[in-house]
């Protein structure tokens, strides 16, 4: 085991150099520094809540070699076929953590919106990438963020200039293949008074692809800008997915994230949001549906560094069969956080007695002029609702499906685009039918 580890590490070190050779100097330096950080960082401490439910060793490359990203994408999802920009502002296709191509509505391109691979951006848009790349991560470089920074093959870069408002979403379809180690890093910058919706749609090429994907995403929402960020993950059951998403929301800006986690065998997701200005508004919605032997672990942090702003989080989890969900969340109000309003909710439905849900909603409040609350619940379907449905003539199975669909629907409706909503509903309905 340790031999394998060593040889993999040395081949990974070589890969860092290979990748660095193609990058501008500042990025090559960042890679090397990240690799050094990765090598020297200990595995996270499992005594910490963040790692209480998922063994960090499972996210190590182990015997996996760094995969060469594929060049093909396979068939596009039906809802991407349109080819016009009637419903979308742009489409991008990503394979194994590298952007293959991106097309955006020319009227938007004319206004300076950029969607391209992050490594291309590092060369072509150096000033902006240098300013924002790793701006939200380095001080607390966690071991796995260091890994994705050292080894990323690419990623998506989205830049919406000041004052540009996109009235249709940007969609990024990302497919993963093979069983190697993959890393990517993406960056979204929404400048002052701009507005955008970005949808990340992650799946695997086949149901049996067993890759390990470490992907990092940094999101900057500047003053008075507005961003809706959607993650739909419907990968095959063998994927190991470890996303780390770091967001920063400035004065009067708003960020809404919608997370729909349905696939992969092991998910360890971390999403942190800093509120750094007054008037900022952050909403985080999530659906987790896990069945069979899926292990899904979500962590969120809403960090009110400045007050007079608001955050609201609502994660809804359904766990069936032998699946396991863990949610750890923290609401933190700093010393300068007076006037903050923060709410956090995590509700879990357990469909079978072999399913398991763990939840740790934390509060850390360092000043007093705040309004904070959190609530968590775990349980089976509500008896009264079931009885109500029976009294209207529904069968137990119908009643169950209806109630669960109703439980998830408020989040589904926040996904932009009827077509995407319907796709998510269909996947959920199929999975529910299997589970009930």
């Amino acid at each position, binding site marked *: 085991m340790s031999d394998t580890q060593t040889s993999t590490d040395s081949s990974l070190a070589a890969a860092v150099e290979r990748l660095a050779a193609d990058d501008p100097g500042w990025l090559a330096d960042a890679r090397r520094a990240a690799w050094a950080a990765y090598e020297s960082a200990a595995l996270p*401490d499992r*005594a*910490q*809540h*963040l790692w*209480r439910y998922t063994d960090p060793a499972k996210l190590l490359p182990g015997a996996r070699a760094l995969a060469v990203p594929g060049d093909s994408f396979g068939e596009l999802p039906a809802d991407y076929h349109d080819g016009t920009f009637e419903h979308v502002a742009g489409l991008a296709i990503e394979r194994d953590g590298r952007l293959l191509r991106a097309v955006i509505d020319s009227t938007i391109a004319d206004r300076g919106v950029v969607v391209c691979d992050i490594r291309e951006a590092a060369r072509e848009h150096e000033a902006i990438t240098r300013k924002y790349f790793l701006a939200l991560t380095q001080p607390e470089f966690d071991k796995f963020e260091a890994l994705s920074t050292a080894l990323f093959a690419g990623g998506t870069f989205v830049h919406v200039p000041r004052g540009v408002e996109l009235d249709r979403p940007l969609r990024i379809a990302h497919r993963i293949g093979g069983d190697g180690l993959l890393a990517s890093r993406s960056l979204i910058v929404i400048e002052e008074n701009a507005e955008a919706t970005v949808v990340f749609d992650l799946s695997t090429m086949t149901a049996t692809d067993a890759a390990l994907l470490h992907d990092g995403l940094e999101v900057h929402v500047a003053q008075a800008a507005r961003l809706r960020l959607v993650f739909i993950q419907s990968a095959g059951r063998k994927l190991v997915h470890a996303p780390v998403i770091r967001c920063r929301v400035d004065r009067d800006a708003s960020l809404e994230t919608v997370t729909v986690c349905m696939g992969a065998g092991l998910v360890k997701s971390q999403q942190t949001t800093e509120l750094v200005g007054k008037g900022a508004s952050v909403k985080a919605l999530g659906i987790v549906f896990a069945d069979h032997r899926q292990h899904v672990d979500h*962590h969120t*942090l809403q960090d009110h560094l400045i007050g007079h702003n608001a955050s609201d989080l609502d994660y809804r989890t359904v766990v069936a069969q032998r699946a396991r969900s863990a949610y*750890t969340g*923290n609401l*933190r109000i700093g*010393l300068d956080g*007076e006037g903050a309003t923060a709410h956090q909710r995590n509700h*879990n439905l*357990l*469909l*079978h*007695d*072999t*399913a*398991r*849900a*763990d*939840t*740790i*909603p*934390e*509060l*850390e*409040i*360092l*000043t*007093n*002029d*705040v*309004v*904070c*609350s*959190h*609530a*968590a*619940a*775990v*349980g*089976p379907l509500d008896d009264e609702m079931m009885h109500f449905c029976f009294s209207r003539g529904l069968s137990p199975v119908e009643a169950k499906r209806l109630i669960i669909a109703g439980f998830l629907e408020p989040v589904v409706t926040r996904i932009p685009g009827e077509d995407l909503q319907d796709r998510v509903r269909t996947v959920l309905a199929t999975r529910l039918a299997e589970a009930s």
Partner: protein
Amino acid sequence: MSDTTTETTPETTGSAPLKGAAGTGTSEPLKGAAGTVGIGDDYDTRYGFHDDESDYDFKSKKGIDHEIVEMISRYKNEPEWMREIRHKALDTFFSKPMPTWGNTKLLSDIDFDNIHYYVRASDRQSRDWDDVPESVKNTFEKLGIPEAERKFLAGVTAQYESEVVYHSIREDLTKVGVIFTDMDSALREYPDLVKKYFATIIPPEDNKFASLNTAVWSGGSFVYVPKGVDVKIPLQAYFRINTENMGQFERTLILADEGSKVHYIEGCTAPTYSSDSLHCAVVELRAMKGATIRYTTIQNWSKNVYNLVTKRAVAEANSRVEWIDGNLGSKLTMKYPAVYLVGEGAHAEVLSVALSSSDQHQDAGSKVIHAAPNTTSVITSKSISKDGGRGTYRGLVKVHRGAKGAKVNVKCDALLLDAKSRSDTYPTMEVDEDSVNIEHEATVSKVGEEQLFYLMSRGLTEDEATVLIVNGFIEPFTKELPMEYAVELNRLVQLEMEGAIG
């Protein structure tokens, strides 16, 4: 970023302080404003005094080693099995690392070599106040213990430093077979019972501070309530530390046999010193079928006491265990009273109030393990932070597979009185069973301006209004206390609140 909690959580806990229980000054609940008594001033006069130690019977050197453990055991003339447990536990204590969670900074300041692990003021225990050494008697009289006993207690144990110096129980209870004595006497007089249950609920390896307690324990209460006996009025223990750099390690074991009922109250205080003392108690409760145990603690140690206590109960079928836990004093308290619900229909109730003031961190909470069907638990935590104090709720609720029909309700509310104070909530819920109902809610807020405004429009000053609101906030707690305690607690809170606004 996130803190840790639980399973590995040492449950250190605090012991209890009762504060002068008794009927000392009946307070007028709403006085507040006029008084100029500072918080420190009041503690010093009421509890912060210390007695001369010149006539002490024995005081161990500072520091801990096998020699000290051997000495304690010999001194007490203990059976061999207990001596062995102590030595083994000391090795465990040495080998276990300090917790890596919680307030590690304060924890790392504990100097285990600068503590007297065994101190006794008197070479005998009394059943009559007149026999208690004068200085010790004066102390307890100042604290109001004898008065409380006369008024409303069924039995009293008073522990001074490491040993119980006074002990009494009403005769009618003795007649029906109730045992209420100190732990050392119990080991001599009821060796089989003690051996059968000692360290079965909190094993010596449970956590570092429980290991330390097991190695050097002295004093504490032993209670046995026979089948079907209802002890209608409370039993009480009062713990007093007098010496500087003292470590108090009492060990309490309460056994409530089938269908019985008992209410045990503990309180504690200590003199105010500039260097730290350590209090590491271990409290084990077993509620057998259909029994009810209520365990009330009013912890009011001085602000130089580390209060790291492990408290745990096992609840058998249809039994009920209630921890009523008030934390007002100490420098750092880490205490998470636990209930293991092992029999069908068992119920756990944890109701706590923590008041954190300057230089204080109350890291308290609870732990409930549902390991049987139709078990229920209710956890209510109220925390108030002021003057830069920090209040932490840290809890675990675990529902094991097969605990069908379990119901859990956890509610944590925190009130922050000023901008420097801090409140944390670290609840953990682990659910391995589908047919359960778990609810958790927490809120953090400051004193509502509307409430203040309303009360001030009725002629109250801001201080008075705040005291009233705070008293209302902790009302669910105080209403569970015997009246004398509730009055006293309200008075304490009021004192603590004086000058809080401004």
